[in-house]
């Protein structure tokens, strides 16, 4: 693979994560536009894999033009960089989709004078609405299920594992007893 474009500047290998990110974003937009029934998280995971393939290909092709020593280290670091950029993009997408604050900003933007009254906001978005939207999403993502009219957790879904991981992180960062 490296021989194919080994005439490029060695510094091109630094750009492999950016190339991967561009492919990720493009693939994500195309998947969301074409696959209308596809959940945006599933679309993101597919797009991430496509972007990773592009990043690995570009990285392998361009790193061949650098000194042989440390090529594997550069490739691994490049993959880490791509993962970090991918996560930043995911955070952006997730904010636009799930953040209440961003939703309110978008509602204000759509309003005639870019402003809403307390009454408008309360009418559009009361606390029941907030809970309902989250319950709907958590059920769609199989994080909660309804049993005898109550919401229960079956097994150890991803969100529960994440919640436990965050508790461990809090103990490490803030210390015991925090």
């Amino acid at each position, binding site marked *: 693979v490296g021989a194919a474009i080994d005439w490029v500047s060695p510094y091109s290998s630094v750009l492999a994560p950016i190339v991967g990110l561009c492919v990720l974003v493009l693939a994500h937009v195309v998947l*969301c536009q074409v696959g209308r029934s596809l959940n945006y998280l599933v679309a993101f995971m597919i797009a991430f894999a496509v972007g990773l393939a592009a990043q690995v290909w570009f990285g392998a092709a361009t790193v061949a033009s650098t000194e042989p020593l440390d090529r594997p280290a550069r490739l691994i670091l490049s993959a880490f960089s791509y993962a970090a950029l991918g996560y930043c993009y995911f955070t*952006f997408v997730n904010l636009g989709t799930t953040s209440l604050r961003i939703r309110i900003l978008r509602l*204000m933007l759509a309003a005639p004078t870019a402003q809403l009254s307390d009454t408008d*906001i309360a009418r559009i978005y009361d606390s029941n609405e907030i809970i309902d939207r989250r319950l709907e999403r958590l059920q769609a993502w199989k994080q909660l299920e309804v049993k005898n009219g*109550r919401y229960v957790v079956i097994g150890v879904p991803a969100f529960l594992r*994440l919640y436990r991981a965050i508790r461990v992180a809090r103990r490490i960062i803030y210390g015991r007893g925090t």
Partner: protein
Amino acid sequence: MSVLVYSLSVYVVAFGIQIALWRIRLPRNQTAMILLIFFGTYAIALALSLLEGFPGHLMPTIDRAHFTMFYLPATLTYASLYSLVEHDSPSLAMVAAAAETPSGCNRADFVRAIDGERILGDRLQAAVGNGLVEQGEGTWRLTAAGRVVASVFAVAVRLLRSEKAG
């Protein structure tokens, strides 16, 4: 020194500095302090790599570029993940509340778990604090910065067809 080891070591050092500072005193604006610590550590590590006799001195310039390409997004990733550590995510809190109660939860339990009666007001005040919204007499208006942020997200939501919101 391998660029991989050097980059990861600097990241771990920055994390260690954060833990040490947090144990002494928790800063008021934790995310801003994390960015300061991590970017400060990056700047020092980059400067040291240019000085003879310091770790990373023999690192070629291309590896300094690789180090930068890794370190900056990795720092933003950590700052973003840290918000989950700092504040309970309502969705995670709801799943945890349901998991901790053998009989599960109803809507009222969830409202209590995420402080649902206050959540809207809290988010609006946070938007005011971030300079995205101005509060008037019973009204809330977008600032210029708020318009930019809202427009960017509005385009993204249209492109990704992700209309459902929290």
